[in-house]
């Protein structure tokens, strides 16, 4: 049987991809950020996941204003890195897991989550930056990936409660897949950042760390944070953190923290990273 063995939370700032691709991971600016991922890179080498369900948002790359799916699951064979204006990142194509992805899509719909199904798309920094952070430079990514795209751009995004419940439903779907697979689920985006208007540059380390504390807690209090609180406390783009709740919801009520990292700044953004396992 397939099982979810761990959850990973991470920011996905595009500048991290640039730093990685240009060999700046250990310079004065990026060194302290990447140092917080060294532990995870070693751990992933031991864990060797077969599949990562990677929860992220597209930043006007694969999706424009024509179609705005709230929750969309990638059921395709492979995905190329998107050209976000400077040419695509020179990282490997992302290989899908259509068997498990279609199984999850069908299960979720029967479980009353009416998913959008994607067979072809390019994937932007929201998906490829976390892969670089967790696996470093590689000829081929060491895992297959099921992209799970969430609308956090056009309001309203899904509520924290709904994201948590989707995570729970994903866990049920994975557990009913007959093949023996080691599956991780990653929630990406955040932490505090605002990229627009006179309030741009907002960073709230106290709130971000309280959010990480709530993710570590053995209850589901974090799912009840309303959108307005993310917006007021963590900036307009801090809303991306609702995507971490899909990861957290998939792990069940009780978790153990294996690793945690926080750093300010990376460009306009606070970097947060956490590794949790069900307990």
């Amino acid at each position, binding site marked *: 049987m397939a099982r979810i063995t761990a959850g990973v939370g991470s920011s996905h700032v595009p500048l991290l991809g640039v730093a990685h691709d240009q060999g700046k991971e250990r310079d004065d600016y990026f060194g302290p950020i990447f140092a917080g991922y060294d532990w995870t890179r070693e751990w992933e080498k031991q864990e060797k996941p077969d599949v990562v369900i990677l929860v992220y948002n597209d930043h006007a790359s694969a999706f*424009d*204003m024509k179609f705005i799916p709230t929750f969309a699951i990638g059921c395709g064979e492979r995905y190329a890195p998107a050209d976000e204006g400077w040419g695509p990142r020179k990282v490997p194509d992302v290989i899908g897991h259509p068997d498990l992805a279609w199984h999850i899509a069908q299960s979720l719909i029967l479980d009353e989550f009416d998913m959008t199904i994607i067979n072809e798309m390019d994937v932007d920094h929201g998906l490829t930056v976390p892969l670089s952070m967790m696996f470093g430079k590689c000829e081929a990514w060491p895992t297959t990936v099921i992209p799970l795209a969430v609308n956090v751009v056009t*309001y309203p995004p899904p509520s924290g409660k709904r994201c948590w419940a989707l995570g729970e439903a994903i866990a049920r779907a994975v557990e009913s897949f007959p093949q023996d697979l080691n599956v991780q689920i990653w929630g990406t985006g955040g932490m505090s950042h605002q990229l627009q*208007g*006179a309030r*741009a540059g907002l960073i709230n380390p106290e709130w971000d760390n309280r959010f990480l504390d709530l993710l570590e807690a053995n209850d589901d209090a974090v799912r009840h944070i309303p959108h307005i609180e993310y917006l007021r*406390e963590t900036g307009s783009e801090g809303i991306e953190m609702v995507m971490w709740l899909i990861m957290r919801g998939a792990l069940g009520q009780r978790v153990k923290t294996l690793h945690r990292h926080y750093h*300010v*700044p990376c*460009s306009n953004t606070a970097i947060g990273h956490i590794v949790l396992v069900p307990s």
Partner: protein
Amino acid sequence: MTHTDIHAYLAEFEDIPGTRVFTAKRARQGYHLNQFAMSLMKPENRERFKADERAYLDEWAISEEAKLAVLARDYNALLDMGGNIYFLSKLFSTDGIAFAEAVSTMTNMSWPEYRQMMLDGGRSPEGVRSIREGR
């Protein structure tokens, strides 16, 4: 299932200083502006835009006011007209400037001042959470 009052939900967004939440109203208002920006994802469109910005803009169903704001790179004005930052970022990349530098132009700071603020830990949420409550 608790019911959320959509009017109260949307009204709260107007209480956050210096912020335009990308609501359905803004998404409708800025539809063609954002799709114009999206078109700059393609290298051939970037070339045509750079060769004659005004002519390229005239191919789109966007207001004269919005066209002038694009030409002036007035990002706050573009946000007011329904522009979304992830779409407008295609314009920053066409101009070859860093995301953070473009963002700094929406604040009352110069780019070096903004960059220094970020290095010093960013903008504090103190006093910019709520207009009504002044906190």
